[in-house]
């Protein structure tokens, strides 16, 4: 009996393995597991087996049935996979073709710099304030210690408006406006658009963006200004950036300075960008002039502070190696996409 079973099994397996499609496989199933199959015949013949051997033989036949069934199932899965595989083969694509991009927009490079500058000073505890672009002579000049016939008025070419006002030449008027409304301590930056009545060329445009910053309290020192500028330079231009301060003059600060940073391209060894000096001029600053504090009704005997201002176009041009300021305002996608 056992020999019969194993012969039958071998035949069945050979049959299953040679089935080429699902119909042939179904025929196999009927042939080997159907009612008229040899396996069923074996079961029917069980009654002729001696009763004491019947359970063992019965188990053998059951095993045989199960084995054939699972082999057929395995073969079926295999066949289905072959079918899917053939189908997928036909669906093959050139995976190296470019993707269908939704396309991201870009933030304007000036905005990126402006945001970076705002973030650095915000992290130092500066608030952000804004002011109008149309200003009065008072806020743009007089309150900043630049009286009418002061030579310093020549330092900035001004657009005057038909109504007697002007387009602000710097963001410093915001300093006065903020101080008028708050009592010290105040620590504020004022980003914004400013105007200069200059011919448009690669180096100058009729408007640009500035960030003004100031801090007034009872014991604010020049050394602290230096610390803040040093931190700013390292944050924006990279660790290891050094600053150098040169005495300068602005009517609204005393002492006044101009701040250079070590060239971030050549690290001070001299290159075309820094004109072989190793240094790049990036901002002006100083201790707020007592007359300016007085304009805001702060008592200069009690309060002192510093202020600084920088041009965002200049810094952006340095950062990215842009040599024509007009590119910022032309908004050519081929330019904007680079940042």
């Amino acid at each position, binding site marked *: 009996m056992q020999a019969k079973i194993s012969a039958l099994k071998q035949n069945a397996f050979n049959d299953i393995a040679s089935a080429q499609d699902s119909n042939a496989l179904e025929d196999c199933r009927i042939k080997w597991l159907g009612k008229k199959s040899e396996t069923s015949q074996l079961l029917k013949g069980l009654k002729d087996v001696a009763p004491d051997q019947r359970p063992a033989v019965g188990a053998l036949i059951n095993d045989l049935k199960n084995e054939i069934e699972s082999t057929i199932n395995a073969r079926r899965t295999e066949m289905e996979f072959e079918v899917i595989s053939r189908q997928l083969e036909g669906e093959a694509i050139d995976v190296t073709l470019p993707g269908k*991009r939704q396309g991201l927009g870009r933030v*304007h490079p000036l905005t990126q710099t402006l945001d970076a500058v705002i973030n650095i000073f915000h992290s130092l505890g500066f608030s952000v304030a804004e002011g109008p672009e149309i200003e009065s002579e008072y806020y743009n000049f007089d309150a900043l210690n630049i009286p009418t016939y002061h030579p310093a008025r020549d330092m900035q070419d001004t657009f005057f408006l038909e109504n007697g006002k002007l387009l602000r030449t710097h963001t410093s008027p915001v300093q006065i406006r903020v101080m008028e409304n708050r009592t010290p301590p105040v620590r504020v930056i004022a980003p914004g658009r400013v105007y200069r009545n200059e*011919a448009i060329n690669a180096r100058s445009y009729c408007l640009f963006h500035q960030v003004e910053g100031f801090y007034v309290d009872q014991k604010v020192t020049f*050394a602290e200004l230096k610390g803040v500028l040093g931190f700013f330079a390292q944050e924006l231009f990279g660790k290891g950036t050094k600053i150098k301060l040169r005495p300068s003059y602005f009517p609204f600060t005393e002492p*006044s300075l101009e701040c250079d940073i070590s060239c971030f391209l050549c690290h001070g060894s001299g290159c075309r960008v820094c004109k072989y000096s190793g240094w790049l001029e990036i901002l002006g600053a100083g201790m707020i002039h007592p007359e300016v504090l007085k304009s805001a009704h702060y008592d200069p005997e009690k309060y002192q502070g510093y202020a600084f201002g920088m041009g965002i176009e200049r810094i952006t041009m340095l950062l990215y190696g842009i040599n024509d300021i007009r590119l910022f305002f032309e908004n050519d996608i081929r330019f904007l996409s680079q940042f």
Partner: protein
Amino acid sequence: MKISYAWLKKLVNFSYSPEELADYLTMQGIEIASIEKIGGDFDGIVIGKILDVKKHPEADKLSVCSVDVGTNILTIVCGASNVAQGQYVPVALEGSVLPGGQKITAATLKGVTSHGMICSASELNLSDDAKGIMVLEKINPGTPLSQIDGISDYVMEIELTPNRPDCLNMAGVAREISIRSGNPVKYPQPPEVKCTINSTDTIPIAIKNPDLCEQYSAYIIRNVKVAPSPFWLRNALEKIGLRSINNIVDVTNYALMCMGHPLHAFDLDKLNGPEIIVRTAKKNETIVTIDEKERILAEDMLVIADSVKPVALAGIMGGAETAVSDSTTNILLEGAYFNPVSIRKTSKTVGLSSDSSYRFERGTDRAGFVDVLTLAAHMIADLGKASGISTRIDTIAKKPQQVTISCNLDKITSYIGVNIPHNQVLDIFKKLQFSILEQNGKDVKLAIPSFRVDLAIQEDIVEELARIYGYNNIPMAFPGSEFIEFELNKNIQFARKTRSILTGMGFFDIITCSLTNKKVTEEFPSLFTSKQHPALCVKNPISEMQHALQTSLVPNMINVIATNARHAGQTLQFFEIGSIFIPKSPQEANEQTVLCIAVSGKAPKDSITTTRDSWDYFTFKGILEDYFLSLGLRDINYETASIPYLHPGRTACSKLNNEIIGYFGQIHPVAARQYTIDQNTFIGEFLVSPLLCNINALSRYTPLPKYPAVERDLAIVVDKSMTFQIIHDTLTSSLPGLLEKLSIISIYEGKQIPDGKKSINFRMRYRSVDRTLLDDEVDLIHNKLASVLVNQLNCEMR
């Protein structure tokens, strides 16, 4: 201003190279912008004396000179028109090399061999003067040019801030060097004159406006011979960019450039009176200034007048009639102190700025100028071989005041934030020539030298101390104050959010110029005012293109699209956040921040990998809806609107709380054609202030629905003009709460629908937050909504 390194060396001892000097001065606040080497080593270039000049036999413009160069006499062909017998000139010998690299060899010019070259100043890299050969003065022939004092030099460009007029001259810069080197300044002294000194030779001088002119001093110099200046003086002035005129004018320029005080020389014989009256101009008075221009004077302008009329615009420019000429013999040399504001005002009004006004308006040395006058008068007497010189004639309307500043040593060092020992502070004061008038512990009262017109208050002393101590020797400290509340303002937060969302949707952030052509503001008036006024304009524009303040960001946006469409083509998406200036009245404008947003593009045909179809209204509106939602604005309504440059049937306004916050739509084909845009373009402009009202709002959690929703469809036929917004508002207001969502499945016009009507299929989703809705209940609600539409909006059910 240009300064000469060799000249500085004569004024003060120092051992710094030109580069070191430039660095030191810059770090002391006297910025040196550039250094230019002039001259060269001049190997093989010597002084020659021209013994004889003959015309070249073959060429009219050439001369054949025999030149004594010490060792022998050379034949040299020269093309300069100013060549003359007896001149001492620089000669480049055969084999020498000019600073420009030109090698000199014997050359035959039209048959005559020239053994060397007589040089111009330009060929020697000494000045730009290439008009003729350089003429020196009597020096032994054969002397190397390099041995002549001050011939090779470094000329530095100095960029002074307006507060430092004291350094607008060589002596002032020398003072700054002396602070560092510790060596005293050697000011030039008046030469001893050989002529008679006549203390009775005088002229009446009256000052009518003591506030505008505190002192007027003069010298009379008799029988002067106006002649070319000696070589050293010409050389000194030409190096720093001044033209040599004659010995009188050159001396006044020398005094100006060396000592910083403007002087003026009159031809005494041409002064009526002769007398000098310092007064303001009379009504309708005029003067012809040295530049031969007639100037009309106003009554607040200070003039120098003789007994009849103005002879000089005080401190700015002299008159042509009384100017020194070749025939002048007697001279009145003026030195005065004028009020800086008055000079600046007149200079601005007349539109005339000179080296003189530039210095007077910044402030001159009130007490020290008389020494400059004395120096110049004696130099003129000396160089002009005068027969007599007067003593100084002084008219003083106001005495000079000693400026004093009181300061506290602790206060000034703590202001800087560094502990500078007091003896070091006092030492710096001494170097700056501040003398201590009183000292009471840490309180000192300083006398400020009269040349430092910029110092008035304690903070000025702080700056002086800091710059001499060295800005770079001050340590870096960090703020250690109490906590101050700080925030980013809403505009910044709005801009950041907008940028992150819109760039994520493919938009480019642009920045355009807020000044524009006036015509553009007329074509694109502000959308946000009911009453239009002309745009506010700049009074002094450089060009018509930057004349008016923009009233809308739309025209710039259209321009950017047009420019980019030309080369980028395809799909374009831009936005700008910027200011517009809404005219409120003919003289006033209201500054508003707005957002302008636009899409433009054709359906791409030439690529298999582009996803976008041609832009349409609803895609653009969908972007806006997503964007508004991201700002926390859920209740924005839309209405049909009309904007001249937008498509009349595809323009909408957006409303928030019943206020218009912006407009958008398809650009009108006529406007598109005007800007040569040939692709579908949609544009919108929105006020920022209403958009940022929810910028900080925190979302509150709504529990997820627990009960099932039920959906029902509804088909209606309605007038074609009926907007979705009206149907939507009618339905949602009739059934607040249970109608969770209303969507449109289809809109149909045409067969089976009467003309002028459209059919809309809606799908309603109903849900209750507290129970499962039963079918009967939903039917009831749904029918109720249907009857609302029938009754209120005159719809028909299908």
